[in-house]
């Protein structure tokens, strides 16, 4: 049976809006690792919490 191939421009395939994805954390995520990766391109690994 042939399947229907929908147009990729259909509203069904539009990206989630910012409002739909809005959450408290915004640009940061839950773990320290990703915070370093996303918010600090040059993390100071000597001050990672274990070497205070």
């Amino acid at each position: 049976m042939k399947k229907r191939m929908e147009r990729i421009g259909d509203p069904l395939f539009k990206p989630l809006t910012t409002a739909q994805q809005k959450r408290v954390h915004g640009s940061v995520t839950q773990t320290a690792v990703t915070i370093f990766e996303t918010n600090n391109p040059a993390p100071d690994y000597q001050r990672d919490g274990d070497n205070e």
Partner: protein
Amino acid sequence: MTSEPVFALFACCVPVKGARRSVVCDLQRQSLHFIPNGLYEILTEHSGKTAAEIKEIYDHEFDAEIDEYFEFLLRHELGFWCDDPALFPMIDLTWEAPERITNAILDVDERSDHDFAKILGELDDLGCKALEVRCFHRSSLAELRTILEAARRGRLRSIDLLAGYAPELTPEALAALAADHQRLSSIVIHSAPESRQLPPDRRGVAVTYRTEAVDSPRCCGKIHPGYFAIDLETFAEGQKHNTCLNRKLSIDARGEIKNCPSLAKSFGNARHDSLHSALAQRDFAALWSINKDQIAVCKDCEFRYVCTDCRAYLVDPGDLYSKPSKCTYDPYTAEWRQPAEERTSAGAQREGGSR
């Protein structure tokens, strides 16, 4: 090897089929791209075929659509044309973690009598790397400092702090707290007089004030796109494990050791039982392996490997394999039903969800 190029997705871009539509999860850029199920079919069943071969399979009825599909994939940098796709194997989605417990929730209210040093020490022994502390009551700065001081040493990588508003919890005081306790990843103050989000500090720690009251574990369990974790670790873990409860340990406000504070089953009390002994009980890990492919409705949802799930609040409380009751998404129509609270207040709300 073929003479015509074939399309290959980047290894970090993984398609997931849903009932009405599919997604490509870009696990490196942490983003989702919706695609038609027809394109999912092309990327999976017809993987390794040239564009001409694919068009032939569909009797040239959808040539324009297929061209659009490949343009879309290239535009969003989800894949590339290559001569030998065998040189680009799929990413390994095996999930392993050396820690016996990877994440924990510690609930606190005005009647709590926790021995924070004991709890944090035992969590550290278990290898716990992420902790969410949820203070349901009006919290003093001194109390927050007492909790955080118990976590100063050890292997915790991240602490998410939720606390009830008190006038002394000013942005300046919380910024000082975050500077003094560098494991803090986020601070959310609930029951505040007004909602506001302060810009992240140098380390990326966000301080947020919310007017909503988070006064019990019942505020947890919401399913919302804002909570999706589109990363390799969650995606791989979600293949065979529960994305909320796997390797999680919770201590409720009364000290009861549980999988989740919202679940009834207790495995002991942290005042007189060790977390190790609770973990050693045979049933403790029973919920860890309930994955989304086993859950009704969720198994047909395109978000199933990036969703945080909830096993405490279910559509059918008698069926551990039923859909989370606080999920408003219908994968069969691809529509979100807007919850009543969001119809009256703009924006999504984080109310004590973990992970």
